């Protein structure tokens, strides 16, 4: 008909969609603004680190100085002033009755985010490491996990308590020379999580880290290391949010996963950093290096990500399939709205024989955003009988956004098979009218259809995350059509 009923309703709901934009006024310890060798000494000293860790940081920093920010991604942003960032911010320790106790203000902050750090109140089988700005404030269920020999603690604790494991594995998958942001992270990383699953253990709980940026002008540089020894299994979840601010804040993390023989690691992310407002002001710049090494035969690493936040996302969770018969998986839903930009995808490097990888990527662009899939599938000469299947679909909502697909396929083995498929389309008017005719308004219909479109990926998320992710998709796209 002459009017488009959906338009007006949708226009009304464009603001205030980001539900986690509050700020908690906490007294903080800050590093001085800027980045020099002194900053690194300061961070290392604050964390009471051993000398070898300081040296690792300095080596990375000196290397970083020789690098240039990468420019190949389909992203445009104002230059980042690395001297204008505070590289360390930690809530000041208060006098508390016991060492295990957490500042109630912080507990309240996490409660508001829907993360309960109180083990008694926690219903589902999830252990949480809660990281605010540069430090981990609490890791739950450590005792329960300890009984099974599982180590789950903050990275700082691990440096103190398990130096041999950190020395052995840190930087073994993502070397500090890997790229610009990996070098930066290796120099200044503050905290993060460490998980170690010993031989023959199926981790009894879901492990989870929740990252929160709170302080202003700071960057967050966390580092996660997951080691799954032979015949072990772990499912790990990562969530993140930040306050709404007009400035852009930098987040440059590293995640390393090592899977030994027959081990399986499932890594799920719901990335919901503050995306900026509808005019593109503020938001997190998210430059993340995530990589898993399938070191042992028959090992498996699976990445599932739902990317709805951040002003800029630069992220390629990858698998290096070294062990024979190892399996890598990447399932991704990336949604961009307003002025968000995402350049995300994966790398699957096939080294071992009979290795398998699957890539399912669903991009959804709305508003004036740009959403790119960038992925590399590389089959090396020794990776005989390897297989890759990639399916990368893009959905466009509106005619002001962009959806791009940049697959790189390199094969040097005649017995391997690589298949890549991609489509770009929009929600059809027929689908919308069908829903309307059943009484469902346009906005709800888009939510339904988008969730249906992303279902293949959402199904891969642990239950705790799946519902959250579905809601998030609908919220992110509010006001996207009209």
């Amino acid at each position, binding site marked *: 008909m002459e009017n488009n009923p959906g338009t007006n309703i949708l226009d009304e709901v464009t603001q205030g969609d980001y539900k986690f934009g509050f700020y908690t006024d906490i007294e903080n310890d800050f590093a001085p603004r800027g980045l020099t060798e002194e900053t690194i000494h300061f961070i290392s000293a604050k964390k009471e680190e051993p000398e070898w860790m300081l040296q690792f940081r300095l080596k990375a920093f000196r290397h970083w100085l020789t690098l240039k920010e990468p420019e190949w991604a389909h992203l445009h942003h104002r230059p980042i002033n690395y001297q204008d960032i505070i590289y360390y911010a930690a809530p000041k320790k208060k006098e508390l009755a016991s060492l295990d106790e957490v500042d109630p203000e912080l507990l309240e902050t996490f409660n508001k985010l829907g993360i309960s750090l109180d083990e008694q109140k926690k219903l589902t089988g999830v252990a949480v490491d809660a990281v605010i700005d540069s430090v981990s404030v609490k890791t739950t269920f450590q005792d329960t996990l300890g009984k099974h020999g599982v180590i789950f603690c903050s990275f700082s604790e691990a440096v103190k308590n398990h130096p041999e494991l950190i020395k052995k594995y840190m930087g073994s998958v993502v070397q500090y020379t890997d790229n610009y942001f990996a070098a930066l992270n290796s120099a200044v990383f503050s905290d993060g999580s460490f998980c170690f699953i010993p031989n023959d253990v199926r981790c009894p709980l879901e492990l989870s880290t929740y990252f929160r940026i709170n302080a202003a002008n700071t960057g967050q540089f966390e580092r996660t290391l997951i080691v799954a020894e032979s015949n072990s299994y772990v499912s790990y979840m990562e969530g993140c949010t930040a306050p709404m601010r007009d400035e852009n804040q930098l987040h440059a993390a590293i995640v390393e996963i090592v899977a030994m023989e027959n081990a399986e690691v499932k890594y799920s992310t719901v990335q919901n950093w503050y995306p900026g407002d509808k005019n593109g002001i503020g938001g997190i710049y998210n430059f993340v290096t995530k990589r898993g090494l399938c070191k042992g035969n028959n090992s498996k690493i699976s990445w599932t990500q739902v990317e709805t936040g951040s002003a800029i996302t630069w992220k390629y969770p990858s698998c290096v399939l070294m062990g024979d018969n190892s399996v890598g998986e990447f399932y991704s839903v990336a949604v961009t709205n307003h002025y968000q930009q995402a350049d995300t995808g994966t790398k699957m490097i096939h080294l071992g024989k009979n290795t398998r990888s699957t890539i399912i990527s669903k991009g959804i662009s709305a508003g004036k955003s740009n959403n790119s899939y960038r992925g590399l599938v590389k089959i090396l000469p020794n990776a005989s009988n390897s297989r890759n299947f990639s399916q990368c679909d893009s959905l466009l909502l509106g005619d002001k956004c962009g959806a*791009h697909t940049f*697959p790189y396929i390199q094969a040097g083995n005649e017995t391997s098979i690589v298949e890549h498929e*991609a489509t770009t389309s929009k929600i059809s008017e027929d689908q919308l009218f069908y829903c309307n005719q059943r009484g469902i308004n346009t906005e709800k219909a888009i939510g339904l259809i988008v969730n249906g479109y992303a279902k293949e990926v959402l199904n891969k998320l642990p239950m705790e995350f799946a519902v959250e992710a579905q809601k998030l998709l609908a919220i992110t796209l509010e006001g996207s059509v009209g």
Partner: protein
Amino acid sequence: MNGSKSSIMRVPDITNSPKVMENMKLLKEIPLGEMLIDRFQNQFDVITANDIPAVTAMRKEAMNHFISNGFPSSSDEKWRHTEIESLTEENFQYYLKPLDSEQDIEDLFKCEVHDFDTEIISLLNGWYVNKHAGLTTLPNGIVYGSLTNAMKLYPELFEQYYGNLADIQVNGFVSVNTAMVQDGVFIYIPDGVYAEKTIQIIKLIDKKEQLFVQNRNLIILGKNSSFSLMHCDDSINHFSSLINTVTEVYVGENAHFNLYKLQNLNNQSGLINSTFIHQEANSTTKSNTLTFNGGMIRNNINIDLQGENAHADVLGLYLMDKNQHVDNQIYIKHNAAHCTSNEKFKGILDDEASAVFNGYIYVARNAQKTNAYQNNNNILLTPKATINSMPFLEIYADDVKCSHGATIGQLDQEAMFYMRQRGISSSNARLLLMYAFTAEIINQISIEALRKRIDDMVKKRLRGELSVCEKCVLHCGSPDKEYHFEIDMSKI
């Protein structure tokens, strides 16, 4: 893969012959780029002798660009997988006018594809060779001939069209071509003319030294016209050469353009082939790039769909072996609504051959109702053959249907076994499957006689029986010896 491997092709390898090695050693003095800049500065008068002012201005701008940017290198994203330095750092001879000693081309070579009646344009070592050196005007009004002559006769056409599509910023090869090119082919199809005969450009390299050869072609199709061009790049000796061709094609409203590119060079030669096609509303283009031999071949095909409802079919087939390398860079820009494009490249790689495919479909914001399809399929026959496939999409319009795919694999082992169980030898089964794989592209060749000939060439190529002959690598002139697989089809 089983033991009875038959290579795509066996050509006697002469790179190790002492004489060639000696020649190469002598020549390794000044890199190509430096030589060209030097030549431009010292022989500017010779280079611009036949120019109209607009072209001279263009040359200067292009040379400035070349001086600041040079030839691409493998550190450029677009050239990462093609080691072009191995050619551009060589020492080549570059002539600014034809040598008196050029033989009459007809003595060297005669192309006679059976039943395929064409107007033939021959370029020998980069020079337009024709007894009537001027322009040929056919009864239906089609004009063709030497680019240099056409520039003198039709300055207004050159001012309007020449150099507008070939962006000198694309890469150093385009800029150095614009700056220094001396000859090439001009073809003009007037409005409403349906060209019955295909025009065939045959480029031959036959010089006993390392030659750098540049050509520039300008092709204009008027409204409602129709025209087919066949463009053959051949070498007839074993000396290394580097050919740098730039072709600009304007396809007018409702005009139909067919392009067949046949590339069959010796393994020491490099070919940089940049084709820019501009399409007006309701026009169609069908381009077939058939690469059978060549040391290093780079095809840049840029198609601009500028008018509504235009359609482009961009097809390619590459059959490479030894250490041959082919790099197809296909950029299709959808700039108007309701346009469609269909891109399909297939390749078989044997020995240590390598191939690159980079398809890029760009859909502009206003290009609604675009329908674009892109596909690249590869078969690797050996552990040392490699492929880099990059099918890209960049899309800014929402009401579009775009899809792409890429596959890398090998011959279907089940089909192989099935055929062997029916008594077909495994080598024949391999041939049949490879041939079947190529058929999708060959069947798209709409000129019957040409399709038969290419079909025959592919069979020979796959069989490994096609080798460089004394006069022409193509073996086109022997219609009586049509090639058949020695297989009893009734057994399948």
